[in-house]
């Protein structure tokens, strides 16, 4: 119960803070711009040839502005609440908070609220974009990699066109994709949001180790993505290719080489890091 009170108070603090509003606005601008770009590029297209709504959703790999969002995303996740501990220290309100809720509730509340904040800034705008796409564009199952009659359709779905030795090929969760592309996109929005929340929690727990220079909190998540891209380049030299690009796990895309071990390692790392950082934060003193 005390933990819930701590989370509630910190959640109210978060949604009133300018950093959350900045983060949310940036994502919202991105999804609306993406929608408008899709709208403009399909202005004079015959509806029969227009791509399906699920293929024009901004969370799909072929989205026109995806490259921009991909490079900004590692910094965006930091915005909702990762700075809050350092802000409390610099403003010196922490004695009043710690005195009322205790260190455990305070730090546990920080970690959980970090997760929730970053979850929201991805989940809500991406759902808005999905809704707009489904209202505007046809549901005609025209995929970017072909329609039912195209030669490459089945091979793209099943991954039989991949010629290198890899752990996975074809569209993941194929049955769900065939049953309902809408549900498939919603699932990916949830995956993206959870990943975003975990990344934000990572930068939040890094803040427990530094005293000032909030700007340093941008480094951990960016470095994580950079290392993932770097490992991906190295992976090509292995016998079996594994995709280490973290963005490929959270966007809807038919890329190959995705192994459940990569996100599992990330989640396990996050849980272990959160546990030890939480213990460290509870033991240390702000003097």
């Amino acid at each position: 119960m005390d933990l819930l009170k701590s989370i509630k108070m910190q959640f109210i603090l978060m949604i009133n803070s300018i950093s959350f509003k900045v983060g949310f606005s940036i994502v919202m601008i991105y999804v609306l711009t993406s929608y408008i770009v899709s709208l403009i590029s399909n202005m004079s297209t015959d509806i029969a040839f227009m791509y399906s709504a699920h293929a024009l959703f901004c969370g799909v790999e072929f989205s026109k502005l995806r490259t921009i969002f991909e490079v900004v995303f590692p910094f965006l996740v930091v915005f909702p609440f990762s700075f809050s501990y350092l802000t409390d220290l610099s403003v010196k309100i922490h004695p009043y908070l710690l005195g009322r809720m205790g260190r455990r509730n305070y730090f546990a509340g920080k970690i959980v609220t970090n997760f929730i904040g970053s979850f929201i800034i991805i989940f809500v705008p991406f759902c808005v974009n999905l809704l707009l796409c489904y209202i505007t564009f046809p549901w005609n199952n025209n995929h970017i990699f072909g329609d039912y009659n195209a030669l490459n359709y089945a091979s793209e779905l099943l991954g039989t066109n991949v010629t290198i030795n890899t752990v996975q090929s074809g569209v993941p969760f194929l049955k769900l994709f065939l049953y309902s592309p809408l549900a498939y996109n919603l699932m990916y929005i949830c995956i993206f949001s959870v990943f975003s929340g975990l990344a934000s929690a990572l930068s939040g727990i890094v803040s427990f180790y530094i005293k000032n220079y909030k700007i340093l909190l941008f480094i951990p998540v960016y470095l994580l993505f950079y290392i993932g891209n770097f490992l991906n380049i190295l992976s090509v030299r292995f016998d079996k290719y594994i995709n280490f690009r973290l963005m490929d796990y959270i966007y809807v895309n038919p890329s190959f080489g995705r192994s459940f071990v990569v996100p599992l390692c990330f989640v396990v790392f996050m849980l272990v890091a959160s546990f030890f950082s939480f213990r460290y934060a509870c033991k240390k003193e702000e003097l």
Partner: protein
Amino acid sequence: MHYIETRNLNKELKGNLVLKDVNLNLRGDKIYGIVGKNGSGKTMLFRVLSGLVRPSSGKVLLDGNEIHVEKHNAAKIGLVIENASLYPAFTGLKNLMLLAKINNYIVEEEVRDAIKRVGLDPDDKRVVRKYSLGMKQRIAIAQAIMEKPDFLFLDEPTNALDAEGVEIVRNIIREEAKRGALVFLASHNVEDIDILCDETFKMAEGSLYQEARE
């Protein structure tokens, strides 16, 4: 009746003993004062008593219960500590409402009363960033008294206050003691100590001495 007990309290920081064998036995609805030079350890003592800082050795008992640093304590503590502030982007009322919502001991009306008691306007739209030093001190005191604490630790409460503000704070301290709270205040202002305190201690290089009252 509330009481504070400390047994052989020591606090070491980077090899220096900031608190040395502090033994306190404070009882009742009294106002206790503590005087001492800058850096003598008064603020550190308040931090340890309020559970913000872990003692290197010894115990702190509030109403017989050992104080926890990590867990939430049952004792209601009101604290004004030097240099502490509130969120600069919010108004005074919003700041205090956020703090009040943590434990839900009080409602908005009581928060407003606390702000009025210190001589501020609860409907003031200015954010704390735009407050003068005296206003920040007053809102900090409002934050300490709003939940009707059992223990009130005030570190330099009359700092930066005008004559009217000093009188308001003195009256608040008397009222809180009358209500039944155990008030422990530190001040460089000898007048505050003389007028308000029933018992006075002196802090010197981490050690606590009882001062004789004439």
